[in-house]
């Protein structure tokens, strides 16, 4: 996107009211934020492909002794609790963004740490679930159904893990005094990624776990 010099055609891109940080753009949206939204739009295609593959292969779990589909082995109560706490991590994330926008650093750190903790609990739950399936004898290479299941949920897990790294990095920057109110948009961009990971799970939870 082309930066422009005429201040009458643009608004400040950063969270600072006076616009003394960041670039002015013809859209009034910072390049970083626009890039994140474009990236998230492209991620819809990635997860769309993985979800479609799962739908096509979900009943092809082989014909041998071990022939159960993923749906026959889910612990729905356990996954429901994991889904709920990932959903609530979106609340703590948005509260972190809100905190930095009003310059409340203590609240920012509390909510960032809480979000990272909730994300870590979700990942721990996913690792536990994978381990249970492996104990039953169903691994990534067992059959098309299990390959598609592990690829989809595994890719999502990697996204959550990256999100946790981003959250902890933001927390470290805040603790070292390198995030202030002018950098609120950086926290917002991390938040966008986190919320996206959450909405993808909203779809996976329904399509993969709830619909029989």
């Amino acid at each position, binding site marked *: 996107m082309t930066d422009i010099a005429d201040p009458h055609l643009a608004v400040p891109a950063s969270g600072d009211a006076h616009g003394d940080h960041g670039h002015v753009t013809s859209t009034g949206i910072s390049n970083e934020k626009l890039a994140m939204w474009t990236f998230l739009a492209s991620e819809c295609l990635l997860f769309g492909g993985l979800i479609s593959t799962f739908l096509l292969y979900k009943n092809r779990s082989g014909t041998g002794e071990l022939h159960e589909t993923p749906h026959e082995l889910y612990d729905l109560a356990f996954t429901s609790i994991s889904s709920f706490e990932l959903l609530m991590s979106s609340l703590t994330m948005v509260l972190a963004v809100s905190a930095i926008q009003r310059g409340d650093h203590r609240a920012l750190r509390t909510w960032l740490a809480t979000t990272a903790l909730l994300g870590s609990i979700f990942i721990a739950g996913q690792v536990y679930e994978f381990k249970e399936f492996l104990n039953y004898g169903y691994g990534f290479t067992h059959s098309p159904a299990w390959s598609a299941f592990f690829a989809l949920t595994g890719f999502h897990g990697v996204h959550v893990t990256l999100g946790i790294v981003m959250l902890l990095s933001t927390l470290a920057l805040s603790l070292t005094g390198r995030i202030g109110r002018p950098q609120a948009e950086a926290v917002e961009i991390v938040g966008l990624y986190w919320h996206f990971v959450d*909405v993808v799970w909203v*779809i996976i939870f329904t399509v993969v776990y709830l619909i029989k």
Partner: protein
Amino acid sequence: MSADANAATITADHAAHGDGHAHPTDKLFVKVAIILAVVTAVEVAWSYLPWKDWGDSRALYLFEVGGLLAMMGFKFFVVASVFMHLKFDSKLLTRIFYAGLALAVVVYLAVLATFEFFTCGGSTLPN
């Protein structure tokens, strides 16, 4: 600085940006989270209902799946609109995101239809 004073400052900042939108408050976020939690609980309860005991008609199956997809769509839309601020941000961001989403939905519906997912559950695929 009190919370009210902070909120007033933020509102003033947004006015300086000229975006003309109301700024969401923490109270709104908590209310939305409660609604999402309730919808999730209904979703899980819905999936536990004894649908098979009530018959095996296609209409009943479509109602069961349609209900789950509707609740999923609602949750997706609410998180994107409120938590991701699409409702309060530039419309350009909404267009970019939903264009990507729409493209993904159309492309993969076509893929699923090609492999006869809607008619034979993808029977044209190798096992």
